[in-house]
């Protein structure tokens, strides 16, 4: 058992922290939010130079050969600054799909391009009616000759507006809701018949609605086994849960620090409001929640490499619940302890609040995962 980062991880963490300290002040971030893409191509190149985009990609594919812990530490740093670039979509979600399911040729083509920053991915699985049910897929892929034709629509595709390639799930067999019969495809963003409508989520990160109408794909577009795509989607989602759990920890750290600072400086009745025990105890409860959440984010990260799928899913669900509840508690109280200023768009705490809110509603919310755990009580 060991909870300390390695020397390499410490060094990487330091260089990321330095970069974000100089590039990701609240004001700098605000100006990025105002650009058409909502994030910075320039910083994306910086991440590539620092090796961040290839962090979990193997060395033979031009990556760093890192593991879940490296990604956790990076996502935590991103969470502290509310980084807007499509790292989760491209490296974590898309990269995991390729690593798990890609053929040698697919990996060879895509993974090095991710690592060098020349290609962005998105995973298009969710649909409007599906809510959090991963097996609820209506989009179809029918065979035509050697290839396939996609028909359907995908909803809230994270960074789907800027992706160069999309991992799209579709039914190749079975009824809606059936776990069997889902397949994954690599679709070029410029493919005829694919239309994208980009928008911002409530936290300013970008997403898109996709419509697929007669999108023709060659046989080589199939990613992973025919009809057997759902287990891959499940693992992609697990990687997403672990990564965003770490991001929430970073966001909670910043909210906690901002709140403490505010408690120590804001004067009312002639003294700092932090002199009031009611507020002190709330701050202590936030710390307890943060530490419990941190433990759960670690659990999620460590569980990604667990080979027993049921055991892994259970640990990940526990972490999603634990981090979700901690995130709600800390962010709600961060706004509360700031008072009116915490409600304003011009103040940072509300932006952290909204990032945590969005994350809670990705990949299955607290209630959904608690429900899954309840099913397994024995």
């Amino acid at each position, binding site marked *: *058992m*060991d*909870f*300390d*980062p*390695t020397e390499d*991880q410490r060094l990487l963490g330091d260089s990321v922290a330095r970069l974000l300290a100089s590039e990701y002040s609240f004001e700098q971030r605000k100006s990025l939010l105002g650009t058409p893409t909502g994030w910075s191509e320039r910083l994306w190149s910086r991440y590539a130079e620092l090796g961040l985009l290839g962090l979990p990609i193997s060395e033979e594919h031009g990556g760093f050969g890192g593991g879940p*812990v490296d990604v956790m530490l990076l996502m935590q740093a991103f969470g502290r600054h509310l980084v807007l670039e499509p790292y989760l979509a491209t490296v974590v979600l898309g990269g995991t799909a390729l690593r798990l399911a890609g053929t040698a040729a697919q990996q060879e083509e895509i993974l090095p391009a991710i690592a060098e920053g020349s290609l962005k991915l998105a995973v298009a699985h969710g649909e409007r009616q599906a809510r959090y049910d991963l097996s609820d897929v209506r989009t179809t892929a029918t065979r035509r000759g050697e290839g396939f034709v996609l028909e359907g629509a995908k909803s809230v595709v994270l960074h789907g507006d800027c992706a160069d390639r999309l991992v799209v799930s579709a039914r190749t067999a079975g009824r809606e809701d059936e776990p069997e019969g889902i397949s994954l495809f690599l679709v070029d963003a410029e493919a005829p018949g694919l239309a994208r409508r980009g928008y911002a989520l409530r936290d300013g990160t970008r997403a898109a609605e996709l419509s697929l109408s007669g999108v023709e794909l060659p046989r080589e577009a199939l990613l992973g086994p025919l009809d057997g795509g759902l287990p891959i989607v499940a693992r992609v989602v697990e990687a997403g849960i672990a990564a965003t759990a770490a991001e929430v920890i970073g966001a909670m750290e910043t909210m906690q620090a901002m709140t*403490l600072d505010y*408690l*120590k400086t804001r004067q009312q009745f002639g003294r700092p409001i*932090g002199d009031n*025990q009611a507020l*002190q*105890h709330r*701050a*202590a*409860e936030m*710390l*307890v929640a943060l*530490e*419990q*959440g*941190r*433990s*759960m984010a*670690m*659990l999620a*990260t*460590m569980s990604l490499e667990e080979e027993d799928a049921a055991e892994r899913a259970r640990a990940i669900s*526990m972490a999603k*619940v*634990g981090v979700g509840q901690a995130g709600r508690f800390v962010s709600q109280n961060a706004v509360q302890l700031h008072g009116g200023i915490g409600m304003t768009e011009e103040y940072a705490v509300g932006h952290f609040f909204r990032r945590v809110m969005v994350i809670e509603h990705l990949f299955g919310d607290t209630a959904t995962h*608690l*429900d899954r*755990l*309840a*099913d*397994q*009580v*024995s």
Partner: protein
Amino acid sequence: MDLRFTPEEAAFREEVRGFIRDNLPREIHERMRLGYPPRKQDTIAWQRILNAQGWAAYNWPKAHGGPGWSPIQRMIFLEENLSAPAPELLSFNITMLGPVLIQFGTEAQKKRFLPRAANLDDWWCQGFSEPGAGSDLASLRTAAKREGDHYIVNGQKIWTSTAHNADWCFCLVRTDPTAKKRQEGISFLLIDLRTPGIEVRPIISIDGSHHLNEVFFTDVKVPAENLVGEENRGWSVAKYLLGNERTGIARLGKSKERVRFAKEVAREVRKEGRPLIEDRGFRARVAQLEVDMKALEITQLRVVSAYAKAGGNRPDPLSSVLKIKGTELLQASSELVMDVGGPQAMPVWQQELAALANEPAIGPDWAPQMAPNYLMLRAASIYGGTNEIQKNILNKAVLGL
């Protein structure tokens, strides 16, 4: 970073589990499984079995009869003992008095008291709280006046757990009433409870049990050789005692064992024609507790592992997180158990007393301790520094408020 136990640690857990399974007397185990607190003779019997194995003084250095375990081994041992369930080691002897004597005691004190404390030949209790000194411990007033080679002690202690079972009491007493700072006139004194002038009066708690006491001291003559550390420096001894390694403070093994028990009974009782364990509401409540216990388990590992690395007696303020969450979970699991019992948990009776009186049982054997345990555990967020005091500690030591 790696959350897994090493193969050696996993093997150690198996060894401890196996030893408890093979050596814990059946009757004690069965009573505890049904939620009864260990009787005096149960605690003594089990501690002596562990002591014969060399495990009772689990947190003492090897030179003083401890097993020389790492902090992680100690945590595993405590957790296995709690979740067995087996009687806990008498913490007054093992986690409080022992480390204090090892750190501050004279050679004669160590020789006289340590082996007997490990073997529970002497049952110790803690004389800290007073009617006017609860969370504000430094305002204590029980006076010890030096007369020749004795102190004369006058005053009153309260909330003295198990004083009625005890042979000895380690007490904080005021030896210098004129000291400028209240903390500076306090001494740490070992008092033989058989000394004339001591009266122990029971306090019956809301669970109906006799666990707590008031202890009155009237002109009690205590040999000066029973002073631990220097006169008027007892506050630092007490701080050492309270800040001493708090591996076991979360008592997570107990919460786990109670949730397991709740599920066991929930297979037997019914709701709307089906076993309660199949009820969604019940299952969600269990799932939530299991999530919270998992988080605490990892937080505890983090604290213990940091402690192991630091390798000294350095109280980690995060142990206040363990105290707060640990006691919240103990309380929540005891509530769950009671709620599973429902109306069957309400009648006052005891299996053994009914059997002795040749009367039939009033309800199922799992029922009678459910409510008392719930009631007793309301104290968990009060003793050992109330959870509000723990939050004050976090504010001061971590948050700087």
